[in-house]
């Protein structure tokens, strides 16, 4: 058989969320044998590789490809690191490794925006947001699409499949290109905050992040999405939750993010902050966003790439085959980002966003 790459085997197992002992039982071997395969001491037979591929959703082609660099936990900015089960964390890191493969596959075939992310070291989140807004000529206006803002600066954004739903987002650098994995099953409001949060990590944190770095990234997300001058201009005071609900649509953020920012800027006082947060909790708005945004952000890169491939007769199935993946692994990385979806209600939304609808699946055009 072709060469068996043990690193790829581990990524396949972890991406599928299968424990060593579970896979051992499936393959009829001892759990130690799985460890031996993963560390490269021994190799499975060809038949076993095919069986592993069927269970994990990868073909022989995947296992026989060259080295794949696993993502190390320290090199990734996870949100809520401590609360994430190990299995999900490993599945997410494996998804990151696949995202890296897909991004390299895309880069081999497409010219993408040049990477242009400044780096900062110790500056306050508020200052970083002001610098970014000035340098990127965003003025004080609301940002219409955070994913595309990241893409315009050279990042590639992928989706986190729903089997790692405990995670909001994470990001890392791969061969000089920033990669963001975003949980597209969360609300649009949440995804925008997560995108901005990851942008801060990419620009400011090269090492493993702790509580302070996470707080700063959250502060930056609020400052970037809710620029203070625009808030001061539009808010004289806040008289009701309804006013906040209307206002959140301008900046396309969650109600709670808006309340936090208004308090941070002194537009509402401590007691109002407490009142609004109590009201948010009472009404269940902290877990279920009220009057949610109906326009989801999509990825310009993935839309353009898959649209271009389709025009050339290359279907998503073929992309997956070329990578040695089952379709579900490809679908998982681009789900909810606007690439080659079934038209909804007869037509595809144009522009920077698309209407929320689920579930959506990538489809191959019929031969």
């Amino acid at each position: 058989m072709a060469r068996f790459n043990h690193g790829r085997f581990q990524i396949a197992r972890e991406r599928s969320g299968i424990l060593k002992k579970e896979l051992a039982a499936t393959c009829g071997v001892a759990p130690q044998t799985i460890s031996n395969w993963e560390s490269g001491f021994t190799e499975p037979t060809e038949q076993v590789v095919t069986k592993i591929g069927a269970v994990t959703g990868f073909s022989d082609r995947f296992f026989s490809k060259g080295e794949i660099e696993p993502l190390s936990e320290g090199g990734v900015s996870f949100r809520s690191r401590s609360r994430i089960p190990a299995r999900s964390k490993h599945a997410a890191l494996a998804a990151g490794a696949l995202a890296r493969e897909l991004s390299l596959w895309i880069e081999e075939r497409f010219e993408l925006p040049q990477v242009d992310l400044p780096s900062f070291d110790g500056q306050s989140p508020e200052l970083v947001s002001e610098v970014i807004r000035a340098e990127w000529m965003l003025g004080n206006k609301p940002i219409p699409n955070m994913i595309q803002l990241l893409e315009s600066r050279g990042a590639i954004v992928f989706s986190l499949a729903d089997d790692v739903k405990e995670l909001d987002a994470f990001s890392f650098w791969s061969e000089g290109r920033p990669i963001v994995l975003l949980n597209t099953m969360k609300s649009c409001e949440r995804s925008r905050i997560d995108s901005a949060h990851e942008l801060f990590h990419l620009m400011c944190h090269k090492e493993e992040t702790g509580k302070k770095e996470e707080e700063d990234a959250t502060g930056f997300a609020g400052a970037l999405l809710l620029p203070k001058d625009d808030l001061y201009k539009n808010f004289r005071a806040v008289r009701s939750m309804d006013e906040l609900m209307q206002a959140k649509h301008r900046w396309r953020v969650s109600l709670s993010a808006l309340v936090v920012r208004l308090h941070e800027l002194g537009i509402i006082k401590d007691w109002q902050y407490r009142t609004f947060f109590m009201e948010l909790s009472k009404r269940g708005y902290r877990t279920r966003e009220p009057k949610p945004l109906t326009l989801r952000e999509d990825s310009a890169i993935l839309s353009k790439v898959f649209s271009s491939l389709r025009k050339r007769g290359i279907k998503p199935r073929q992309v997956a085959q070329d990578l040695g993946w089952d379709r579900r692994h490809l679908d998982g990385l681009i789900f909810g980002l606007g690439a080659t979806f079934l038209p909804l209600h007869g037509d595809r939304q144009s522009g920077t966003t698309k209407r929320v609808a689920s579930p959506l699946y990538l489809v191959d055009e019929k031969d």
Partner: protein
Amino acid sequence: MAEQKRNYFEGPAAELRLRELGLEVSWLVDAVRASEIERRSCSPLEPSIAPGFKAWSAAFRRLAEELVPRGWAKTETLNLPRLVNKSTAVAVAVSSGNEATGTSNEPDFKNTRGEVSKLLIRTNQRQLVLFAEMQYVPIPAEEEQKTWWLLIYSDDSGVLRAELGLPIRLGGDAELSMWEQRIVIDIPNLDQPSIPESDEEPPEILVNVRPKS
């Protein structure tokens, strides 16, 4: 008319008079705002008394949150809560006022008063007779309290007015209540143009992608 003017405070005079009573105008403004936030946060699906009740409760609570840490005490008799400063014998209760609240016209309570209010207003009246000569002198601690009412008026068109009044006679069917003093609370205009949902010209974000040849 001159008598009425003497007992009617607004602007800087209102702020000074409030200070004499141991109150800051910002505390009362916050209480009024808290009541308004609560009132506007009510759903039409709640009982019809909810907006009024919740607004009243929120105003009292906000005021209590300022005053109790400063030594005032919360007392309650037969469902009439008051905030009492025992050293100055000033007490404050909260109520809805009618449309004249916060204007130069004579206001009144919006709703019929209960027995405790009647008693407290009679006490205010009796003290007026006893201390007619000493109206603006700090009230001795050992004397009974004078109960002031924070009257709040708001309507659906966005009008929000308030005043702190010292009633000495309760109105009847055909007559208005009588106020020994009225201090108009200047509520900064909270009206604001509705916030535009989007900018006409959002920032341009270009993502150039093209196949390699």
